């Protein structure tokens, strides 16, 4: 469980290492590749509702919660959700790690 999902201010020489901040758009696109666009919309709406964020923009913290809710669908949707979770955690932890350098 990621306790602090607010990425710290990155040092001036911080690198992204090809990892941009994960977004809802990225997540829904990945989901659509697995289940098709129409089913992806339905899955995503269910996951947002289950995570307590049915509408509105998603912070990284909220995106994480939606990913956790999405994983409950199991199967290939859970595989997609796990990937999203790893990318979110890696993004935040990389920022934290570079603050230590």
């Amino acid at each position: 469980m990621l306790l602090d999902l607010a990425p710290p201010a990155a040092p001036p020489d911080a690198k992204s290492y090809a990892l941009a901040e994960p977004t809802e758009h990225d997540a829904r696109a990945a989901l659509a590749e697995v289940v098709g666009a129409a089913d992806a919309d339905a899955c995503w709406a269910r996951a947002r509702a289950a995570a307590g964020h049915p509408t509105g923009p998603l912070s990284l913290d909220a995106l994480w919660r939606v990913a956790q809710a999405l994983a409950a669908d199991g199967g290939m949707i859970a595989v997609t959700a796990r990937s999203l979770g790893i990318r979110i955690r890696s993004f935040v932890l990389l920022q934290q790690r570079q603050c230590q350098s």
Partner: protein
Amino acid sequence: MIAAASTAPVSLPPMSFPAPAASAQPAALRDPARLGAIASHDLLAPQLADSLQTLVDRAAERLRMPIALVSVVMAEAQHFAAARGLPDWVAEAGGTPIEWSFCRHAVTSGEPFLVEDARVEPRIGENPLVELEHVRSYAGVPLVTPDGHTVGAVCVLDTTPRTFSDDDVAALRACAGEVMAAVCARAGTPAA
């Protein structure tokens, strides 16, 4: 904090989906049948680590490498089903984005992937495991299901450059066989 009067599902406007950056990865990683095999073999289950940790430890000791992993390689990320010797922040993430994965090369080629010095391996590119954690050498062999899907890799890593022998690769292949036998036994799927 969002205050919602209702948490019932809401119809969201459909979005157009230009491909995300990670789709620059080979199509093999995105193969639905391969991703389906990951799901059907329950490779993301946290409990799988109980079955695999001893094998990971043995691989590290046999090859005298500080880091050893069983990695499940998905389309956008890799998940560590079992691990030893990882930097704390990488262990906490439970995997890495696919852009940082060494193991993906073993998966897409279907062959062992050996790196003597990651600083001069063009297929690695800019990578925090190399630049921040000083990973230099890597040896990984594919994990293949009985029906032929390459779902990940078992690998070892070190912070010093290293040349790997045929015996080293054979040891990793033997470990990969044991990993898949354990995975299939747990998932209730027929072993090879």
